[in-house]
């Protein structure tokens, strides 16, 4: 009748305190930075009732809810998630579809949110369900994952979700993340290297080709706002008042911060020049206020977090647990790298938030649930 295994009964569960500390630190730091970056604009706008803590309050609420869900997610035995993974995946697809109905609403010119009691971004849910489903599929496919066919099957759910996120919510960056998570999980699970190198080269070559084509067609406006973003990426100064504005202002913020920054709360750029600094561009304000030192410290914290996750994954007692952790790790790694790459104009501007730090209730809530999964897997590590 006992569900738990003998080992768990006799040994204390392993708790990865260093990882939990890093997460809590990042979340708290995120709240401080959200307040720092948003208070000026919030106090100037009637939309936020001139309340400087408007964004902080909303973020704090989402964080507290997220922490509760994180604990719950850490306690429920994780194989439960394997059983509900397909259902939850279908639910997340339905939610993406619901954005098209009157339940959906738009902000900042894009229709990406659902208002069901609270407002959520279905793309954030999809990232979580893809991790749950892909981990299970990889476990079932076992050796088959090494074949092209197996890889295709493993990648299919992510491909469907990514396509829907891209086409329905017009959110290419989330689509890339969803696809990326799935590909990285399959990469870890399979023995093969060649296939992934080919895929990587193909992606890079395609991207380079697109950039080349768009650059040739500059001025025709044929490639819409994404084309314009790529042109602005190549030469932000030439598009200083248009698509390059945000990027350029972010670079100004980073550059003007110097080594130790202007001091917490002392950013100039957040005062109207970098609009919605609390969102995707928050890292540039961190660099402006805390300098290169602060920015690199944040990068180091993410490295520590990912390293702890790698340890957990490598020591997970079963493949499903390990793959869950690999999924979460991939998610965070992709988002952090892409976010900082956007802020530093290493890649074209696309809306990717900085995990745990950027303003965004759905994002922080589902990330904390994912952390709960990692804690969950870590708890069952056997020494």
């Amino acid at each position: 009748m006992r569900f738990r295994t003998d080992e768990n009964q006799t040994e204390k569960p392993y708790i990865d305190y260093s990882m939990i500390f890093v997460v809590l630190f990042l979340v708290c730091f995120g709240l401080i930075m959200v307040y720092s970056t948003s208070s000026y604009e919030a106090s100037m706008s009637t939309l936020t009732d001139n309340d400087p803590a408007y964004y902080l309050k909303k973020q704090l609420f989402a964080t507290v809810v997220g922490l509760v869900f994180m604990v719950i997610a850490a306690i429920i035995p994780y194989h439960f998630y394997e059983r509900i993974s397909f259902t939850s995946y279908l639910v997340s697809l339905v939610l993406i579809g619901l954005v098209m109905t009157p339940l959906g609403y738009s902000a900042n010119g894009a229709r990406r949110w659902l208002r069901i009691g609270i407002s959520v971004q279905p793309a954030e849910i999809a990232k979580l369900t893809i991790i749950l489903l892909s981990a299970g599929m990889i476990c079932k496919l076992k050796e088959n994952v090494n074949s092209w066919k197996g890889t295709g099957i493993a990648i299919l759910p992510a491909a469907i979700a990514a396509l829907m996120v891209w086409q329905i919510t017009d959110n290419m960056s989330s689509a890339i993340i969803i696809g990326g998570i799935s590909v990285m999980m399959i990469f870890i699970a399979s023995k093969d290297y060649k296939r992934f190198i080919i895929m990587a080269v193909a992606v890079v070559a395609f991207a380079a080709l697109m950039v080349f084509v768009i650059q040739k067609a500059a001025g025709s406006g044929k490639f819409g706002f994404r084309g314009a973003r790529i042109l602005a990426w190549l030469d932000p100064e030439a598009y200083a008042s248009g698509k390059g504005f945000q990027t350029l202002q972010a670079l100004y913020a980073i550059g003007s911060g110097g080594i130790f920054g202007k001091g917490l709360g002392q950013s100039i750029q957040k005062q109207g020049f970098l609009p919605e600094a609390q969102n995707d561009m928050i890292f540039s304000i961190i660099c402006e206020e805390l300098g290169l030192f602060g920015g690199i410290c944040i990068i180091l914290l993410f490295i520590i977090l990912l390293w702890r996750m790698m340890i957990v994954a490598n020591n997970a007692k079963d493949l499903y647990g390990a793959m869950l952790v690999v999924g979460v790790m991939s998610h965070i790694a992709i988002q952090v790298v892409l976010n900082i790459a956007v802020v530093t104009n290493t890649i074209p501007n696309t809306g990717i938030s900085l995990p745990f730090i950027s303003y965004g209730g759905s994002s922080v809530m589902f990330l904390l649930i994912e952390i709960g999964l990692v804690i969950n897997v870590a708890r069952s590590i056997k020494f």
Partner: protein
Amino acid sequence: MKNERRVRQARKIRVDSGLNKDMQAKLVILFILVLLAFAGLSVKLISITRDNGEQYKKQVLSQQKYNSVTLPYKRGDILDCKGNKLATSEKVYNMIVDAKVMLDKDESLEETMAALRDCFPSLDISSIRNHVTENPTSQYYIVAKRLTYDEISKFVEMDNDNETYPNIAGVWFEDEYKRIYPNNTLASDVLGFTVKGEGGQYGLEQYYNSVLEGTNGRDYGYLNEDETLERTTIPATDGYNIVTTIDANVQQIIEKYLYEFNENNKNAVRDGNGANNLGCIIMDVNSGEILGMASYPTFNLNDPRDTSRLIGMKECDLKGNIAYDATVLTEENIAEELADEELKNANLANLWKNFCISNTYEPGSTYKPFTVACGLESGKLTGEEYYTCNGSLPVANHNIKCHNYKKGGCGTLSVLGAVENSCNVSLMLMGRQIGASTFLEYQNKYNFGLKTNIDLYGESRTDTLVFTGDSMGETELATSTFGQGFNVTMIQMITGFCSLINGGYYYEPHMVSKITAADGSTVKTISPRVLKQTISAQTSNQIVEYCVGVVKEGTGKTARPAGYMIGGKTGTAETVPRDRTNYVLSFMGFAPADNPQIAIYVVVDRPNSWVQDNVGFATRLCRSILTEVLPYMNIYMTEELSEKEEQELAELNITVKRANVEEELTEEEATDSPDLDENGNVNAHGGDVTSSTQVTQEEMNSDDVETAPLTGTVLNMETGDAVKEETNEIPY
């Protein structure tokens, strides 16, 4: 059973354990790849800071200054002497749409659009909607400019009512000031107007531009020593108000009759206005203050570029000159004639300029009092001379005719008679006695050839338009004595004339008496300034006497308003070319005759008539104006009213006002008055005269007694019929 299977399943999974060695290696490789990415990004971060740090730091600071808001100042008002607003600035509102805010909530767009449609029926709602949907991130789009408070108040109320209209968002109003001229055309030439960004144009607006202008305030951010941003507001300083000497009622009366003159005479013999130009100035004789100054055609100060105001005017060329045979602008031809933008501007400029100070012309016989005063003051004339006019006088190689040439001349005239009859021959003979150098000396004393320095923009220079010792020969002197051959401006004439009749004091003419701050405190008071004495008080009295004679017995009879005696001089000046068809008619006078308080100068420039040389055009216009202005200024009537005159005053709703003493004596006077009229000494009341002007009146009365022999009735009787038409025959 079920549980057992689950346990077995769990064991099975546990058995195949976690990641195998390959997978672990791959995970490490993935981690290293991520590390490399981070390392690359860190290098990028460092290079941004190192390579562009200083540049970006400056960039960030330089961006700050754009983040400042200008707070507009209020341009000062222009008030008349009674405090009526002639020009004022009103706060108006520019409607700004913030698309970003409007689109933030789904309901906002529709609700705001509905409210806008409701409150601003004239707005193009669909174009606003298009802008908002096409530029969802734009935050500053000017939808409508210069709305009044009344226009926006309904919307502002709806916007503030968060219960009924919770979703109105993204529309706000920016302050601005708009120059308003409450009376539209009143005193248009005097006031001038404003052009956004260029300040005042013409008239007082331009002359006093720096006084009327204030300083914009600024709401701006700056960096303190810690390089943190602080905001400061410097409030705007409003411009000063100017209080003019203009009396809006006097101005209105003048303009009413100029307009009426034009209505009665336009299109009479040719298309176009009743005269090329009409001008009238009323001035305080004893201070140089302008009470009213107007010309026709006028324009709407609130819409100065309205070309329909040009209709009826003669078209000028690009330099503003009007050719002798210039096209008259009509409703039909104006669009075609002024298709050229530059030409249109030149014609508008011609409309905007102030005839009274900017146009120069030959004054004609209104100059005669100046000649006579020059002769008397210099001692070259005694006033006892008699002249004989046979109709013409040979001067150098010319035979210069008098206006009575066809009737065989004016006969023998005293100095008074010469002025009363406006006899050119007598004046030319006086000119011979005076001599060119004395004539020019006095012309200069009277300020001809010099600017009067009136405080208005656009006064013409006339230094090259008068004769000098070198250019004045016998002929020039002869014609100059009756005001032909040299050019003057209206303001020069009336200012000089005031000095002839006020005891010789030449006051600087001025329009502004006081400058006040926005809070009402006085910044500066501008008092009357005597610049010089042109003639003695005695000579001045003599001239007054002569001018009264002109109205009583001479050419100016038709200028006398009901109930008053005035003095003055008529003028009929032939214009170039001398083809005896085009004339400038004028009347320059003062009132009341016994105690000059105001001077008036009316000029009718080339009336629209077959026969232009009829000075009645000017005298009748002057009479109409004075009939209303004198009672308005509370100047007591002294003359008996005929039945016709009483009826005329009743029609104008003017109550007859007389000094208290006179009212008491009405019955006694009733029998005396005919004697008074016959004597010609209207004001011979001796010590009976009261009122505030007692002292001067007494002086005048005593002068009247002294000069009585000069105004001999015998001579006046000889010239019996007042000459209504005079012609100056010019030999070239």
